[in-house]
Structures are given as structure tokens and as C-alpha cells.
């Protein structure tokens, strides 16, 4: 499989993972190691940046993992830029997963503030991965603003509903000049495979792994599904047809 280039990173694994919602930091560590994930996102609000023995960070000290701090909790571009700068200083990385959801109920990303923050953060040298609605036009604006990737949602965060935005993801993939990472809502390995078959460059999964009865096994299942989906995409899937194509009744007169 092709490696995925993101900023300075070259990633073998196209499964990005989250660190929230696990029943313990130890289980999180085991599951993320098993997933093969090389990019794990951490909420700035959950970690104690003043404390070097922070429980979450302690369990992510593996060469396999690159940390992707996220700005979850901020409500506008100004707060997001501030949070990103704090994270850069604390975790020594230019990567930032930009999450701006002023709506704490459904955690819907704010397109206007996200575009503003992306512009500013890109200028400041960040590698910006913004979490957004599956909005193809917004994706083009974000590219112009200097984004490193786009992270359209498959379905609302934590909903496990799958790729409900399929039609729009297809358009985004078709138009994109930056990697497309389907984030949020992927509840089963088959959803992840579906996103990858559509041509997504990667997926981000958290809830489905974290709250599974056996998170390690579920992590492996997602790893395999992402690989299968990617391989299928690279191998070029055949299109779907409703009828047999042996004969050409409409054009055979030309023969």
C-alpha cells in the first residue's frame, strides 16, 4: 500500500485514532498499539501540560505514535488559535486537529470560524487538520487557506452511524488536492472500509474502539478493514451494474 504523506510525516497506517472514552489509560494504550495507528489525537483539555507524568501522555510514549493535539472545547477561531499554540509548546508538534464546535450538544463544527482559524494557523506554520462538515466547497476554501488535509464527518461524533455523508465525501475526494480523512461517526469496521473504498486517504476512529467490549480486538478489526478498503481502492474497484453486460443491444448495429 502507498504511504500517506502528511506534513513531514510518512504514515504506513491509514487508521488515525482517538484517546477519549476508554475505560482506562492502560486499555487505551493496548488498543492503540494493536490498531497499528501512527497518529493519535489527544484533547488538550484532558491533559495536564504542567504535569510531566500526565496519565494519558504516559501511556502514549511509544515510537509508533505521533501525537495530534486537538482543540476540542473551543468555541471560536480566537480560542482555537490560542489552544493550538499552547499545544504546540507543550507537545512540541506543529500538527493540530482543529475542532471548533460552539454547539456542545451535537458538536457540529463551525465552518466560518474553522476557515478563519485554518488561515491563521497555516500562516503560523501549523500543519492544520480541520474537522468539518462534508462540505465540498468549504474543502476548497480550506485548501486555499493552506490546510494540510480535510476531515469531513461521516456522521455526528460518537453516533456509530457510518458514512451517512457518502455522496458529499465522494465529491470531496474527487476534487481534493489534500488528503481527505473521514472523521466521526464510523461505528463498525465495515464503515471504515467503505470510506476507504470511496477513496478517503485515512479515517479517524475513537468511540467504536473505546467502548467495545474488547477494544484490542476491535482495534485490530478496524486496522484490517482500513487496509482492505485501501487495497480495494488502489486495485480499482469495478463499478456496479444492474444488468449483465455481455451483449450491447443498443450499439451492436455498429459492429
Amino acid at each position, binding site marked *: 500500500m502507498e504511504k500517506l504523506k502528511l506534513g513531514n510525516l510518512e504514515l504506513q497506517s491509514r487508521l488515525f485514532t482517538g484517546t477519549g472514552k476508554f475505560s482506562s*489509560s492502560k486499555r487505551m494504550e493496548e488498543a492503540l498499539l494493536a490498531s497499528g495507528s501512527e497518529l493519535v489525537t489527544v484533547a488538550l483539555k484532558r491533559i495536564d501540560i504542567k504535569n510531566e507524568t500526565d496519565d494519558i501522555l504516559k501511556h502514549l510514549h511509544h515510537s509508533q505514535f505521533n501525537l495530534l493535539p486537538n482543540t476540542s472545547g473551543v468555541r471560536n477561531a480566537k480560542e482555537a488559535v*490560542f489552544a493550538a499554540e499552547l499545544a504546540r509548546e507543550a507537545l512540541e508538534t506543529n500538527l493540530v486537529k482543529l475542532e471548533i464546535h460552539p*454547539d456542545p450538544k451535537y458538536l457540529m463544527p463551525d465552518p466560518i470560524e474553522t476557515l478563519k482559524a485554518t488561515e491563521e494557523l497555516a500562516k503560523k506554520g501549523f500543519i492544520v487538520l480541520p474537522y468539518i462538515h462534508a462540505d465540498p466547497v468549504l474543502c476548497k476554501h480550506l485548501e486555499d487557506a493552506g490546510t494540510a488535509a480535510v476531515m469531513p464527518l461521516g456522521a455526528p461524533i460518537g*453516533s456509530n452511524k457510518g458514512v451517512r455523508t457518502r455522496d458529499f465525501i465522494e465529491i470531496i475526494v474527487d476534487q481534493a488536492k489534500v488528503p481527505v480523512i473521514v472523521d466521526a461517526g464510523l461505528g463498525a469496521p465495515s464503515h471504515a472500509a467503505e470510506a476507504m473504498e470511496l477513496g478517503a486517504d485515512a479515517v479517524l476512529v475513537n468511540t467504536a474502539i473505546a*467502548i467495545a467490549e474488547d477494544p484490542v480486538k476491535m482495534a485490530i478489526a478496524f486496522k484490517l478493514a482500513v487496509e482492505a478498503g485501501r487495497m480495494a481502492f488502489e486495485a480499482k474497484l469495478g463499478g456496479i451494474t444492474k444488468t449483465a453486460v455481455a451483449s450491447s443491444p443498443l450499439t451492436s448495429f455498429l459492429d
Partner: protein
Amino acid sequence: MFKEEIKKYNWDEVKSSIYGKTSADVERALRKPKRDLEDFKALISPAAAPYLEQMAAMSQQLTQERFGKTIQMYIPMYLSNECQNICTYCGFSLDIKINRKTLSDKEILEEVKIIKAMGYDHILIVTGEANKTVGLDYFINAIRLIKPYFSNIAMEVQPLDQHEYEQLIEEGLNTVLVYQETYHKEDYKIHHPKGKKSNFDYRVDTHDRLGRAGIHKMGVGVLFGLEDWRTDTFFAATHLDYLEKTYWKSKYSISFPRLRPCAGGIPLKSEMTDKELVQLICAYRIFNQEVELSMSTRESETFRNNIIKLGITSISADSKTDPGGYANPAVNLEQFEIDDKRSTDTFIEVIKKQGYEPVFKDWDLSLQ
């Protein structure tokens, strides 16, 4: 404002509608992908009692989807038990002869030291209502004192004006909890005969003022025991629904205080059994997947051990309800008796044994 909204509902009609719900209403509510306030009535009605196990399973699943296998830890810190209100059920009531105390800067920092050693990072400051001595200036000073030690500061004090909330938010206040006690306006007057708190409308509009001030999170609730808990709860859920739609940038939490014995306590009008409290917690979760559900140490060890898995998302432990109680445990100052007196370390082990992670930090003051 909610004082206008509430006029759309008639207490007695709501009550008979809840008690008139049938098992068919309950089953429909359980089957639907999204529930409305009518479904909530069915879920809290006596007709839902036989469905408790099914409701518990749904509540657990919905909670895990949204919040994961985690429980947020917080601790209350009482700063003052001075109070100018008479509340018929409260240990801080003006007419009760207890020692009154308001913590000085030095005493606040002594409490903070002990609370930090217990591991807490989210704190809830609590007072009675004594506007002259424990008003805006006192709160600003208290927040400035404790801010370096905590990532999240919540407050459960008297209702304030919008501009006062704006100032406190600026200082670092994240959350405000204000419980209506009861939404029954006439009974409210009986239970709050004297003091600023006797103004029902001012209290019921508090969350509107908070929303306009741009608070991050606010808490809603009723005090169980004053009135019929099902009817009161319906009003609280209606309040929540109205607030979520109006102030969509704020987060919400619900608490479930059942009246506990306290100095000068009144006989309870409506008692809520453990089974009914579980039913209510599950009903809230099934009605609203996103709302935070909070549990204090008012409840027993057994109840708290088992409720962790059923929809609760934040919980306190090892709490003192008297000002200065962590550094200098004294008698005759507390608001109510707590039931679960286990240490934080012991309680954390209980949470972990249930397969949940106790989370101490889930906010950062830099995000305010």
C-alpha cells in the same frame, strides 16, 4: 425568558397527563429513535416501572456512546453558610441556630491544599445567600485565589444578575448550578417565605441570564421531596429543552438531590424511592443523550456503586458540606448530612472495578 414559557403549562394537567400514561406510551417511547417531552412523561410515569431493566440497558448504551467509559470527578468546597433566606428544608436557613462562618483567604487556601492532595481538578464552590458579605466581590476574590489550582471552576451560590455572571466568567468561572427546588409556584412560596430567594420569577429566569452572559455550562434540577417529583421533573426537563434551544452554545447538567435529614428539616411531601430515582436517571438519558447527569454524596454507598453504570457522567466523593470542613472538620456547620463518606481513593477503586475510568481533568482554563 422561562418565566413566560412556564405559563404554557398547567401543573395539574401535566400531573394527570403523566399519571395517565400507559404501557403502550412507554413502549412507543422506547422504540422511537428520538424522544420528545411527551415521551419523557411516559418514561417517568408509573407505567414505565416494569420496563426498568430495559431502560437501564438503553441508558447505559446511550451514555457510553456519548461519554465513553469515563466518569468525571468533582468536589464541592463550601465557602460560607451565612444565609438571609428561610428555606423550610435547608440546614443553612436563616431561622436555624447554627454557627455561621465565611472563609477568609487563608482558610480558602487551606481547603484548596487538602482538596488538591485528594487529587481533584474540577471544583464546585458553594455558599448560602448573604449578598452583603458573600456577594460578587467575594466571589471574584475567591475565584482569583483558587484559579491557579484548578482546571474547572463551578459555582452553586445565590442567583446573580447577568452583568455579574459576565464578570465572573471573565475571571474563569466555567459552570453555574442553580436548582429551582420546585417549579410549583405556590408551593415554592411556602418553602421560601423570606429572603431574596422567595422571588420565584427571578430564580426561574436565572438560566436565561446565564445563557445571555455566555456561560459554558449550567445545571438544572429540582429538590426531590417538596412536591410530586414526576411533575416537578417534567418542568425541569421542559426548562432544559427550552434552554438547549435558546442558548445552544452552553452545555447542560442535571442533578438529582433528594432531601436529606438536616437541622430543622421538614417532613417530606413526596418521597422518591431508589427504584424511582434510577427510573428518572435512565429516563433523562433516553430523552437526552447529551446532557450531563451528576450525582452527589447524598446517596448511599450501594446506590452510588451501582448507578455509575446507568447513565451518570459526573460524581463527587469524600465531600464536606460545611465551610472549612476539609481542613477543620467541625460540628454544627453543615448544610446536610452526607451518606457516602468513603475516601476518594476508595471510591476511585469502585469506579475502576466497574470498568470505568475516573477522569479528574477534562477542561483547561486556557480554553475559557
